[in-house]
C-alpha cells in the first residue's frame, strides 16, 4: 500500500516518457517530410495584371498567396513560351536545352545544330525526371510545347501522370483547333497516350484543374510527395472564356489603355513594386493615344481586354480550387507554391501570322475554325481575339515592349513563392535578380536531390540557374552577387543584365540594330540609351555577351520574325543617322545583309 503512490508516479513518468518519445519521432518525421511542389505557369500573362502587382483584374487567390509568401520584382523569363519552358524544366540556358529558337521559327542556319533541336533535348534531364527517380509523384497539366514525338512528350520526360497539349496554343474549348494549320487540331496526351476527343464541356483552365486534383488524389495513398506542374494555357490567345464569364469586365476598359496604364502604375507605386520616382516607358511609338478615339472605338478596343481579364480571373479562380483541395486533404501547408508567367504579354499579331494571306492554308484554316467575328462574339469558341500591343504594354506596365523581345516588357514576369520554408510572408523582394533557370535547382534542393552529371548513361549539362533556398529561408536576399549576370537571345534580339546595367540589341524599329545601354535603376522603361555616356560599361557588357554566346553555343538566326519590323512599323524616332532605314541596303550582297542581321556589321549604310 505504501508503494502505491510511487507506482502511480512511475507509471506517470513512463506514459509521459513514451508520449514525449512518440511526439519527438512525429516531429522529426514531419521535419524530414519533403515538401510538395506546385509550380503554376500562366501563359502570356502580363507583369502588372495580378492585383498584388498593381492590376485591376480580380485575382484574390493569387493576391492571398502573395500575402502568405513573397513577391519578387526582378524575375526574368525568356521572350517566348517554349524557350522559357525549356529553361524552367532543365535549369539551364535554352540554347543548351534545345530551344535555342522556337521550333516553329528556326532559321535555316540553325537547323540541325546542337541546342536548336526545337525540343527539350537529351543534353538535359528534366526536373520531373529527377524528382520522379527520387521518390516524387510527378504530374503535369496544360502546355508542354517541348516536343511531340513519343520520346519527347511529358510522359517520356518524367511526368508519371499528365494531361497536356503538346503545341503552343489553340482553342481553349472542346473544338480544340490548333493555331497552326499544319496540325489542325491540338494534340493532347493523357498519361502519355493521345486523347482522341475532348469532353464536351472542356475549357482549358477548368479541365487542367480537374486533372490536377484527380492526379493528386489518385497518388495520395503511398504518402510520397508530389511535384505538380500546372502549365495553364490561359491567357494565351485566342482570348476565350466560358460564355458566362464573357461580360465579367464589361465596359471596364472603355476608358482606353492610357488611363488604365496610368492607374496601374499608380497602384504599383503604392504597392512598392515600382519606385515612386521611377522612369517608366512611354506609350510605344507606334501606338495612338487612346483618348484620341471616339468612345465607341474605345469600347470596341476594350472588349478584347475584357476577355483577357476574365481569362486571368478564371485562372485565378481555378488555382483557388487546387488550394482549397490541398487544404481539404491537409497538404497545403506542406506545399511550396511557385507562380510565374512564361513571358511578357502578347503584343504581336498572332492571328495574322497564323492566318497568313488570303488563299493560303493558314487562311483557310482560320476560315474553317475561328472566323466568327463581331463585337459581341469575341471570346467565344469560334473566335480568335487578341488584344494587341497597346493592351500588352498595359500588361507590362511599367516596362517597354512585350512578348518576343528582350526589352523588360518581354522578359519580366511576376513571381510569387509561398509555402514551408519561405520566410517573410507578404514581403516584396526588390533586391534579388532571379531567372526562370533558377526554379529547377530550387526545386531539387527543396526535395533534397543533387543534380547529377550523368543521367541514364548520358552526360547532361550542368544547371546554370541558382537555387533560391537560401533566399527563401531568409539567409540571403538574392542568390546572385553583383558580379553575376544574365543573358538572353531569341530571334536575333539579345540582352545582358548585370546589376543595374543592361545592354540590349533589337531589330529596328524596336532598337537600333546596335547595342543600347540602359541603367535599370534609373531608367526602368529603357528610354535612354547611355552608350555614349558609359562606353566602358557598354564594352564590358558586350564582352559578357560574347561569353554568353560561347558558353551556350548561340547561333544568331539568318532569319528573324522581327527582321522586317521596320517595314510595317513607323520609326521609333523621327530622325537618325541611318534614316531612311532601307537606304543602301537594297544594293547590298545577300551575304553582307546576313552579316548585318547577325550583328556582325553595323547596319543601315
Amino acid at each position, binding site marked *: 500500500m505504501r508503494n502505491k503512490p510511487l507506482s502511480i508516479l512511475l507509471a506517470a513518468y513512463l506514459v509521459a516518457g513514451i508520449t514525449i518519445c512518440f511526439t519527438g519521432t512525429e516531429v522529426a518525421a514531419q521535419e524530414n517530410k519533403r515538401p510538395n511542389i506546385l509550380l503554376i505557369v500562366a501563359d502570356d500573362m502580363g507583369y502588372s495584371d495580378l492585383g498584388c502587382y498593381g492590376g485591376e483584374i480580380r485575382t484574390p487567390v493569387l493576391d492571398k498567396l502573395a500575402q502568405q509568401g513573397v513577391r519578387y520584382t526582378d524575375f526574368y523569363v525568356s521572350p517566348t513560351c517554349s524557350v522559357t519552358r525549356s529553361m524552367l524544366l532543365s535549369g539551364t540556358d535554352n540554347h543548351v536545352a534545345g530551344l535555342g529558337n522556337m521550333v516553329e521559327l528556326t532559321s535555316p542556319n540553325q537547323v540541325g545544330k546542337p541546342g536548336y533541336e526545337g525540343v527539350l533535348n537529351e543534353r538535359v534531364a528534366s526536373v520531373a525526371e529527377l524528382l520522379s527517380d527520387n521518390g516524387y509523384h510527378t504530374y503535369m497539366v496544360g502546355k508542354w510545347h517541348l516536343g511531340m514525338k513519343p520520346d519527347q512528350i511529358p510522359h517520356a520526360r518524367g511526368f508519371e501522370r499528365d494531361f497536356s497539349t503538346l503545341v503552343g496554343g489553340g482553342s481553349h474549348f472542346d473544338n480544340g483547333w490548333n493555331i497552326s494549320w499544319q496540325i489542325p487540331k491540338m494534340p493532347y496526351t493523357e498519361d502519355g497516350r493521345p486523347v482522341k476527343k475532348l469532353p464536351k464541356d472542356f475549357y482549358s483552365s477548368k479541365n487542367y484543374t480537374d486533372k490536377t486534383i484527380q492526379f493528386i488524389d489518385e497518388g495520395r495513398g503511398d504518402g510520397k510527395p508530389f511535384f505538380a506542374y500546372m502549365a495553364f494555357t490561359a491567357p494565351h490567345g485566342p482570348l476565350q472564356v466560358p460564355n458566362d464569364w464573357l461580360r465579367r469586365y464589361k465596359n471596364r476598359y472603355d476608358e482606353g489603355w492610357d488611363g488604365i496604364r496610368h492607374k496601374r502604375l499608380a497602384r504599383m507605386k503604392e504597392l512598392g513594386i515600382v519606385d515612386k520616382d521611377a522612369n517608366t516607358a512611354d506609350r510605344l511609338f507606334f501606338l495612338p493615344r487612346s483618348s484620341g478615339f471616339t468612345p465607341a*472605338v474605345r469600347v470596341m478596343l476594350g472588349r478584347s481586354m475584357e476577355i483577357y481579364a476574365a481569362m486571368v480571373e478564371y485562372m485565378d479562380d481555378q488555382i483557388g480550387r487546387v488550394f482549397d483541395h490541398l487544404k481539404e486533404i491537409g497538404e497545403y501547408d506542406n506545399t511550396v507554391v511557385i507562380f510565374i508567367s512564361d513571358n511578357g504579354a502578347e503584343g504581336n499579331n498572332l492571328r495574322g501570322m497564323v492566318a497568313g494571306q488570303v488563299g493560303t492554308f493558314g487562311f483557310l484554316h482560320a476560315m474553317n475554325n475561328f472566323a466568327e467575328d*463581331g463585337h*459581341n462574339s469575341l471570346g*467565344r469558341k469560334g473566335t480568335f481575339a487578341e488584344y494587341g500591343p497597346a493592351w500588352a504594354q498595359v500588361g507590362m506596365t511599367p516596362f517597354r515592349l512585350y512578348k518576343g523581345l528582350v526589352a523588360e516588357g518581354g522578359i519580366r514576369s511576376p513571381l510569387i513563392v509561398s509555402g514551408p520554408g519561405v520566410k517573410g510572408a507578404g514581403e516584396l523582394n526588390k533586391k534579388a535578380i532571379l531567372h526562370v533557370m533558377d526554379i529547377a535547382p530550387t526545386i531539387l534542393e527543396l526535395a533534397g536531390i543533387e543534380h547529377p552529371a550523368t543521367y541514364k548513361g548520358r552526360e547532361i549539362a550542368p544547371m546554370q540557374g541558382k537555387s533560391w533556398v537560401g533566399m527563401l529561408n531568409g539567409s540571403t536576399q538574392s542568390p546572385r552577387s553583383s558580379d553575376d549576370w544574365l543573358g538572353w537571345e531569341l530571334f536575333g534580339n539579345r540582352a545582358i543584365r548585370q546589376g543595374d546595367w543592361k545592354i540590349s540589341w533589337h531589330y529596328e524599329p524596336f532598337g537600333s540594330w546596335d547595342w543600347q545601354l540602359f541603367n535599370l535603376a534609373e531608367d526602368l522603361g529603357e528610354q535612354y540609351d547611355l552608350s555614349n555616356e558609359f562606353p566602358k560599361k557598354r564594352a564590358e557588357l558586350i564582352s559578357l555577351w560574347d561569353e554568353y554566346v560561347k558558353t551556350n553555343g548561340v547561333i544568331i538566326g539568318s532569319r528573324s520574325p522581327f527582321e522586317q519590323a521596320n517595314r510595317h512599323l513607323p520609326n521609333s524616332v523621327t530622325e537618325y543617322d541611318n534614316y531612311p532605314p532601307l537606304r543602301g541596303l537594297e544594293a547590298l550582297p545577300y551575304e553582307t545583309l546576313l552579316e548585318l542581321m547577325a550583328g556582325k556589321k553595323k547596319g543601315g549604310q
Partner: protein
Amino acid sequence: MTKVNRYTYLLTLLGSLVSILSFGVTALAQDDGARAYWSARSGSQMFSFQYLPMNIGASDSKEFAPGQYIYPNANIDVNVFFVTWARHMNLFRRPSMLAVNIVGGSVNANVNIKAAPEFLPPGITPGTAFSQSSSGFADPNIQLAVNLFGTPMLNSNVDLLNYEPTITLDAAVMLMFPLGEYKKDKLINMGLNRLIGRVGFPFKWHFGVFSPGYMSSFELMPSVWLFAENSDFVGKKLENDPLWSLEGHLTHDFAPGLFASFDMLYQSGFQTSVDGVEVGDKLEIGNLGITLNYNVSDNVMIRTEYSSNVFGSDNLETSVGRLQFIYHWSTPDVNFKKLMGGN
C-alpha cells in the same frame, strides 16, 4: 347560336367574309413580321414598301332551310401595298418606335350564292356568282411601341456596342382610322368605316450571341384587337367582339444580314353581330409561315414571307405572300475621321 332569319344570315355571312377580308388587309392572316419590334438606335428611321398578294377562300356551304343553300365558295383575291415610315426614339426615357402605315390596293371577291331573291341585297341574282371589287386606299394606322423591360436607351454607338438584350418586353398600341375607301352600299370595301385599335405586348427572347450572323430570337406578340361598330353596313349595324391574337417567330441568322424565321399566327374571337344579333361562329384561325430576309447593303433589306393557314373556322383558307423592301438610315457610324478626331 342565336337563330336569325335567312336574309340576315346571308348578309352577316357575306358581311363577315368582307369584314374578314377587309380586316385581313391589315391584320388577318397577316402578322407584323419577324423582328418587327427589334430596337434600333434612337433617331434612326425606316421606310418600307410591302406588296402582299393574298388569297382567301371559304369553301363551306350552309343550308338553313330545305332547298335553300348559300354556297359561299368565296374566293377573294387581294393585292395590297403597305407604305410604312417608322422612327425610333426615346419616350419617357424608354426606347420607343412610332410607325405610320398607309395601305392601299384592290380586292376582288367572287361568291356563289343560291338563295331566294327576297333575301339578297339589291343587284345580286340568286344562283349566280356574286362578284364585287374595290380599290383605293384602305384605313391607315399609326402605332406606338414602348419598351417596358430589357432594352436600354440606344442613343449612341457606345450604347449599341453594349447592347446585348436577352429578354425584352414592349407595349404596343395601334389605331386604325376609318379614312379608307368605303361605300355603304357595297359589301366589298377597302376601308372598314370604323375605328379599330390594338393593344399588344411584344416579347422577345434573344438567345445565342447578339452579333450579326449569330443572332437568334424567339418572339411572341400577344395582342387584342378592338373594334368600334360600323353603323352603316349595308344599312345595318355591324359589331364585332375583340379578336385575340398571338403571333410568334423563331428567327435565326445564317450569315450576317441573312436571317430566316419560322412564323406562327393564332387568332380567335371576332364574333360578329348584326343589328345586335350574334351571327355565325367566332373566328378561329392558325397560320404557319416562313420568312427570309437579306440585307443587300447596310441600309437596304429585302424580305419575303409566305404563310398559309393550317386550320380555320368556316373552312377558311388563307394564303399570303409578302415582298418587302426596307430602307433604313441613322446618324453616320464611326468613320475614320471621327476615329482620329476624338469626341
